[in-house]
């Protein structure tokens, strides 16, 4: 037991605080949110948090890995619920100086691993599996949780995965993930979407990048939306504007380095200049 601490997590408008005497739990949880801040419990905070959690005696809650995994799931779930006024997609997002690259795809497709590899190659990090869209004009906003990598993803990254944390969080669904904070974070501001990239992993195939019709890209974005029925016509309008302002490609690949090289080539790989992460403002 130590003095009580509070972890402040901000994911766009959503703010969570997690209170605990167990610094080990909060430090592990902080690794899941690159812009999180660990503060003394009496640190003032300007806005009331959307979610306020208190972690009790961990020895009665089970393994720290499970506690952290459950807290992370609770925070992410609450953040998604709080951001329903935005159009949300299952998608990884990285950025170059020209704008964002959106990679829609179902869970298990390898988005997080590819996003991690792209970030290690110099792309700025927005999110590994949730794209937050707003507008007009259409922009994608960061969902600044750390890249969550399963064991296969860590293996695939190989030497590029050197910065992956050793701690393993166990999610409520039993999956085990390790966290990676990419070297270049996007900050909190939205960016226009410059590229939409449909992923198609095929064993043994060399990486190829081919243009796809924007109508198909729109269909893919809509199919991977988390809350498009809630937004209806307006939501489709935002997605349409996204693809109309973007170059749309399908990336077929099996090996990460080739995929990164193909993407770097098409985007020009111009360095991104990010703004500083903003957190809870002092009172």
């Amino acid at each position, binding site marked *: 037991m130590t003095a009580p601490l509070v972890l402040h997590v901000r994911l766009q408008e959503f703010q969570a605080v997690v209170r605990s005497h167990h610094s080990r739990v909060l430090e592990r949880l902080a690794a899941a949110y690159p812009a999180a801040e660990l503060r003394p419990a009496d640190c003032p905070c300007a806005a009331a948090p959307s979610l306020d959690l208190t972690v009790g005696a961990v020895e009665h809650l089970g393994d720290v890995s499970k506690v952290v995994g459950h807290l992370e799931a609770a925070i992410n779930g609450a953040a998604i619920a709080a951001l329903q006024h935005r159009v949300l997609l299952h998608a990884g997002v990285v950025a170059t100086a020209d704008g964002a690259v959106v990679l829609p795809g179902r869970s298990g497709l390898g988005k997080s691993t590819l996003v991690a590899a792209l970030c290690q190659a110099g792309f700025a990090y927005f999110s590994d599996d949730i794209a937050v869209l707003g507008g007009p004009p259409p922009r994608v906003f960061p969902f600044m949780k750390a890249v969550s990598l399963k064991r296969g993803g860590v293996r695939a990254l190989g030497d590029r995965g050197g910065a992956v944390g050793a701690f393993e969080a166990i999610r409520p669904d039993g999956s085990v993930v390790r966290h990676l904070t990419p070297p270049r974070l996007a900050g909190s501001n939205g960016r226009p979407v410059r590229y939409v990239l449909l992923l198609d992993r095929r064993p043994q195939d060399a990486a190829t990048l081919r243009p796809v*019709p*924007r*109508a*198909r890209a*729109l*269909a893919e974005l*809509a*199919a991977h*939306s988390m809350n*498009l*029925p809630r937004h*209806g*016509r307006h939501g*489709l*309008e935002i997605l*349409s504007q996204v*693809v*109309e302002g973007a170059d749309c490609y399908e990336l077929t690949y099996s090996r990460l380095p080739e995929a990164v090289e193909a993407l770097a080539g098409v985007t020009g790989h111009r360095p991104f200049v990010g703004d500083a992460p903003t957190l809870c403002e002092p009172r």
Partner: protein
Amino acid sequence: MAVSLRSAPLDGARVRRSDRVVERVVDGELVLYDTARHRVHVMNPTAAWIWRLCDGGHSPAAVVSALVSRYSGVDRATVEADVGEILARFRVEGLLDE
């Protein structure tokens, strides 16, 4: 369950697009989004043209006639089969008001 897409009668009532379907044209291609079923459809040019005629003012037979008039030289029987299949698909997908 197998669904026959060639079963739509061409002498049926006038066909009308469902209000719950949102449309958008992107680079000349018609995209439909069914807000109730959360499904997206990208129309080919023929399907898009037929979709436009599902305005509540055309029966399936009238759609066929319009298509035959538009594309001179096409075989009416072929058009009837295509229109019947496309309208059947629209119905299966819930894109039309019944």
